């Protein structure tokens, strides 16, 4: 047996022994996700146990170094783990902005002290993070942000407002872009971490069209932050911010993979007897399966260090537009059943609410237009883009 084959065998039997049966069923809704953190209410013992054992093994972040709470696995081993989890239908033990966004940025830009302090907690799901990028006047034009961060000698003093902060009311800490200098637009931004329980932080929920409210306006009023909580150099936060956005886009592009084809559509919503709709679904399947092949290829490229830095933008764009299309088709296939806001026929409103939620996919993490602009500029090298 090769090393990889024996790793597969070991992994399989470890998962068999350690993944609770309840954690091998598909999630019913977004609410089934495990977010961890100081105040997280686990929905079941199984959910808590699954996070604990995976966290102990470092398998919530299999490819991070073991020294920082990761699994220390090679790319090939990580792939095997993913495949074996998929084979038994294991749920993701932890949904976490810490893992998908902050972690990679800390690994690249953090000090040794920051890495040992924050990464293991992220890996074990002990701290829940939120992202403080957008502001009322700074969305697509993110570098237009105004939140002030002043050097007060022994601490930073933060004043300003963020918006669209997902789960700000549930998060323990925030990673945040702040203005440390007004001399240059991009060159005056710093990347700051702080505790959401700090004095002067408040949040106010924003209700979405889907009826959910995981988003907040976040206010900072004379928030004191310790000096060692800036990642990277002062005024050089834009590089960190962009690096992190690449990872955010990578994560969001995964939405294109959402349980995908006509089979799922038909299974959940009954036979599609309209030939025009059936044709649309067939073409959608082609796009969905092709995109899945692209995602796999993209991940392989990333791991091999061969992906163009602007490729996450292409993937984010394609994946989110595909996901929106999927939910349009689900609605079409469902007919009036899918319109019921809160009934069994729409699976408790899953169909219409998810459909509405997906409309944000092409906005959050940078809009589709912004992604296309990045591809035009950095990959196609079109002038003045």
């Amino acid at each position, binding site marked *: 047996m090769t090393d990889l084959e024996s790793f597969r065998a070991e992994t399989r039997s470890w998962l068999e022994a350690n993944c609770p049966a309840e954690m091998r069923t598909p999630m019913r809704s977004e609410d089934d996700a495990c977010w961890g953190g100081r105040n997280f209410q686990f929905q079941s013992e199984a959910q808590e146990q699954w996070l604990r054992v995976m966290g102990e093994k470092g398998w919530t972040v299999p490819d991070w170094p073991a020294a920082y709470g990761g699994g220390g696995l090679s790319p090939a081993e990580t792939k095997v783990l993913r495949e074996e989890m998929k084979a038994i239908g294991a749920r993701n033990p932890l949904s976490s902005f810490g893992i998908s966004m902050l972690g990679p940025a800390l690994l690249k830009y953090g000090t040794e002290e920051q890495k040992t302090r924050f990464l293991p907690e992220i890996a074990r799901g002990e701290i829940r993070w939120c992202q403080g990028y957008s502001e009322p006047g700074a969305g697509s034009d993110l570098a237009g942000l105004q939140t002030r961060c002043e050097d007060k000698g022994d601490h930073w003093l933060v004043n300003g407002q963020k918006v669209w902060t997902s789960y700000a009311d549930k998060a323990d800490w925030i990673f945040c872009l702040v203005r440390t200098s007004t001399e240059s637009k991009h060159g005056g931004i710093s990347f700051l971490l702080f505790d959401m329980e700090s004095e002067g932080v408040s949040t106010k929920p924003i209700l979405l069209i889907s009826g959910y409210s995981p988003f907040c306006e976040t206010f900072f009023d004379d928030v004191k932050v310790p000096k060692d909580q800036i990642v990277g150099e002062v005024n050089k936060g834009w590089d960190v911010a962009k690096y992190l956005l690449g990872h955010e886009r990578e994560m969001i592009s995964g939405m294109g993979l959402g349980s995908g*084809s006509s089979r799922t559509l038909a299974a959940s919503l009954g036979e599609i007897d309209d030939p025009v709709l059936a044709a649309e679904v067939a073409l959608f399947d082609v796009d969905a399966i092709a995109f899945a092949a692209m995602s*796999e290829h993209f991940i392989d490229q990333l791991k091999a260090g061969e992906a163009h830095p602007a490729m996450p933008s292409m993937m984010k764009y394609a994946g989110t537009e595909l996901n929106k299309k999927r939910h349009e088709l689900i609605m079409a296939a469902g007919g009036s059943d899918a319109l019921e806001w809160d009934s069994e026929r729409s699976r408790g409103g899953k169909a219409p609410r998810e459909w509405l939620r997906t409309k944000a996919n092409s906005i959050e993490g940078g809009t589709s237009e912004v992604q296309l602009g990045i591809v035009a500029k950095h990959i196609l090298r079109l002038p003045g883009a």
Partner: protein
Amino acid sequence: MILTDDQRQIADMAKSFLAEEGTIAKQLRHWRDIGCKDGFGHDLWKQMAELGLTGLAVPEAEGGLGLGATEAALVMEEVGRNLTPSPFLTTALVAVEAMKGTEQGKHWFPGIVAGETVAAIAVDEGPHHRPRQIALRAERSGNGFALSGTKQFVVHGASADVILVAARTSGSAGESDGLTLFAVPREAAGMTVENVALTDSSKAARLTFDKVAVDADAVIGEVDGGWEPLRRAMRLGRTGAAAEMVGAAGGAMTMTVDYLRQRKQFGKLIGEFQVLQHRAAHLFGEIEIARAATLKAAELLDKGDDKAGIMSHVAKAKAGRVATLAVQEGVQMHGGIGMTDEHDIGFYMKRAKVLDSLFGDSSYHARMVQVMGA
């Protein structure tokens, strides 16, 4: 999928060779302008043989390189990028795949490896690819068969030394059982070959069979068991055609993006207009996705994975649609110059149209994906 070093070498070799020798000016435009009856150059076919490409898929034991669908796709992509006319797809991939492991293979492979033999495959009987509907009959007669019926869209049919003909030996139209694949030499008595020029200046034949007598040993594989070699050959064929379309789409896009960087209107480079940037960026993504799907199909074929069948349909359907988008955007963004014969962009449009149709168009393959997925 990350290519191996060997695969990269093949791709690089094909890339530099075809960018040098397979260009539109040297091949496609040249043969068209002189009204060549083959639509491609035999010299180039010989040169490809010298590089080992004609025998790419022929087993090593029979003098070939013994390579797989992935290498084939990488070469096809470069063929597509340069719009290089050659019998590579029909001969080196489709015919070789169909004849692999058979006596017919032993007979024809040496010529193919040497770049002397051209092969074609005859499947379609109407304007749409419907392989199960094959009605051309092969009746037993003497110690062989007599073929009667018609075929069309037989690419390179008039230039081929051998034509693989899918015929019905039993059953009826609509069934996959009862088909048999025959290797018919082009001189076979009773076969009429009408050489037809296609939109892209390539040549395809309409064939009429009037009791064409073939020996029993012309059968490739088993009598009534033709679906199997045909299916294998078509999988590789559509994956190859998909790769060629990915290459053509990429070639058209490169030409277009270059134009956007040079052409000035309203005192600006037109590439500065965001509406064009976004369409170009969208197109870029679509081509990448089509390429990933095509390489995935090839990878699954090489692994002998069950999912190779459906993935080859996905690849053909996706690449067909993407190539169509690429050439339409290409001509549009070139403005008026793109409508001229003098400019090469129009060649991409014409080639993409033919390739989309070859071995089944996007609609056909999307329907197959749905049928197989359900």
